[in-house]
């Protein structure tokens, strides 16, 4: 860190953070957490690879049978596997577009509002709700007999027949709405933090030149909040892969598999049919995509912090 290099530790004769003496202190601080995390993440990861080549025995003590590439072959020829990627992509793209559009608009207005603090408190509320509870609550609102949102949609004439969750045409978008309800505020708050850094003098200059609010936004504000927007988009994509509680509560994948996103298909294979070996193969492909996304996210984070320079690393 640049901050650390500036400290005059060596001059005072105390251990600087990068000396061998300092490392003796740092290792015992670091290692317990690293070992615990390794046990909880690398060990299961190795297991996952092992499982993907086996038909996993379910009875206590039952051995797993080596099946070679069977699970993998099955996955690549499984049409539902690929269809579920499609559902996940459609779901993620649509909810992301809505959340980013609405969230950016909200952020701009919040930034100008006298009641910013109060509004942020309100916006935080949906994010505190357990996703499965949010799913159940919305299932109640969508219910075709006594759901208020169902009643509202019928009353304004937007829904002619069928129920919201019972139709393959509407079920996925109904879950998108829940995601938008719960997580648009997160996007808004990330973008808001970016807006706070927009250079005001440039905006003023843009206004003086006669550019309207919309043009000023695209010319001056947008470049400044690009980084925040990118983080928001990536985090939302990651969470769409991570969390399937809304789907479990609202539809369980139906009707006619129209809401069966890939993580939900994985859940079903592993814990409804107990095809744990096959589940492991699917899980590994999901993890691979997550790691790629994770790399993008981390690169974004690091743009806000200096990379440790080569010189620093050589000091060790």
């Amino acid at each position, binding site marked *: 860190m640049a901050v650390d290099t500036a400290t005059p530790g060596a001059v005072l004769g105390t251990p600087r953070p990068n000396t061998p003496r300092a490392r003796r202190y740092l290792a015992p601080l670091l290692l317990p957490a690293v070992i615990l995390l390794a046990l909880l993440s690398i060990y299961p990861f190795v297991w996952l690879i092992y499982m993907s080549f086996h038909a996993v025995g379910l009875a206590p003590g039952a051995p797993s049978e080596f099946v070679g590439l069977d699970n993998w072959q099955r996955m690549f020829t499984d049409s539902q596997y690929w269809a579920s990627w499609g559902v996940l992509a459609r779901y993620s793209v649509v909810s992301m577009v809505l959340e980013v559009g609405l969230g950016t608009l909200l952020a701009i207005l919040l930034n100008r509002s006298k009641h910013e603090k109060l509004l942020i408190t309100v916006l935080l509320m949906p994010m505190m709700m357990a996703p499965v509870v949010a799913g159940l609550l919305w299932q109640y609102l969508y219910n075709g007999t006594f759901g208020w949102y169902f009643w509202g949609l*019928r009353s304004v004439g937007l829904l002619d027949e069928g129920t919201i969750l019972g139709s393959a045409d509407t079920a996925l978008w109904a879950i998108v709405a829940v995601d938008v309800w719960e997580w648009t505020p997160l996007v808004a708050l990330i973008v808001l933090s970016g807006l706070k850094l927009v250079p005001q003098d440039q905006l003023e200059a843009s206004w*003086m030149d006669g550019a*309207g609010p919309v043009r000023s936004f695209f010319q001056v504000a947008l470049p400044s909040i690009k980084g925040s927007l990118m983080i928001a988009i990536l985090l939302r994509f990651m969470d769409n892969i991570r969390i399937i509680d809304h789907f479990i509560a609202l539809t369980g994948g139906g009707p006619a598999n129209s809401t069966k996103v890939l993580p939900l298909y994985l859940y079903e294979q592993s*814990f409804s049919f107990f095809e744990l070996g096959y589940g492991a193969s699917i899980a590994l492909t999901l993890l691979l995509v997550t790691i790629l996304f994770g790399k993008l996210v981390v690169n974004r984070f690091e743009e806000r912090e200096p990379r440790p320079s080569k010189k620093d690393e050589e000091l060790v």
Partner: protein
Amino acid sequence: MTTNPRTGTRDDVTQVQDDRADVRGDDLLPGPAVDARDQVVRGRGSRIAGVVITAFLGLYVIWTLVPFYIMITSSFKASDAAFALPPEGDWGGAVSQLFVFSPTTEHYRGLFAQGEFERYFTNSVVAAVASAVISVVFGTTAAYAISRGRFRGKRDLYFWIISTRMAPVVAVTVPLYAIFKNFALLNTLPALILAYTVFNLPFAIWILKGFFDSVSYEIEEAYMVDGHSRWQALWKIIPLVAPGLAAVVVLCILLAWNDFIFAAVMGGEAAKTLPVATQGLKSASGIEWGQIMAAGVVTVAPMLLLGIVIRKYMVQGLTMGAVKQ
């Protein structure tokens, strides 16, 4: 507080932003100072814009709060009242039905009458708090070491830690289920505590590192010059990151408390938590919507309270520290 690790000139940056906040008026869009704006948008136009903005924000607040309102009121309505809807298009009837009803606590009494719901609540508390404490204790020392140390492979260590946090919950559940089965840990609280630690420990390390980065090394150095050991120096600066510790504890509790998948797969009946119990009300002998709403209130209320307490750090935590408040 806004920190700038690149230059270390936090105070200056904060100062500049404060100045800017003063200049910023209460007007539309990330616009310039008020006087410059008036030349562009004149009186009437800006008043209309103001009305539109207020209306949009008002509608958004309503959209956000209506589900909460319906959840809370339905949990206090007798079943026949909660299930009754006015005829389609009868908006007046809707308003009276939404706001006028005689409250009853029958659903809450029904929940706790089974005698099991208190246990689910306790399970949720134990699993969430234990995982949060483990994560913060191990996370604090590791975050300190990563913040202060320079060693080869630090970036790879970083990436490994954060990617663990971002792994899909179901993908992690598959191997953990098999492992916990081998160790006969299925359907126990320790299984849940360990599972939550998979996500909470990297989260704690990641966020706390940011807090340690914002504490100047010179403070520890001063203690060490005075003859304190490094461990003592770390102990001495803990108060400086205390707000961070509190925020991380709450956010770890929030993540564990709100989990469904781990508890549904590995908790069983013995370690059933509130979200699983709430979802369980759906399949057991028909759907008890009144009780589901009551269970939802019981599940959500504590987290709302905690969230408001650490409101300031909430965004930072939910964005993995990408946004510093």
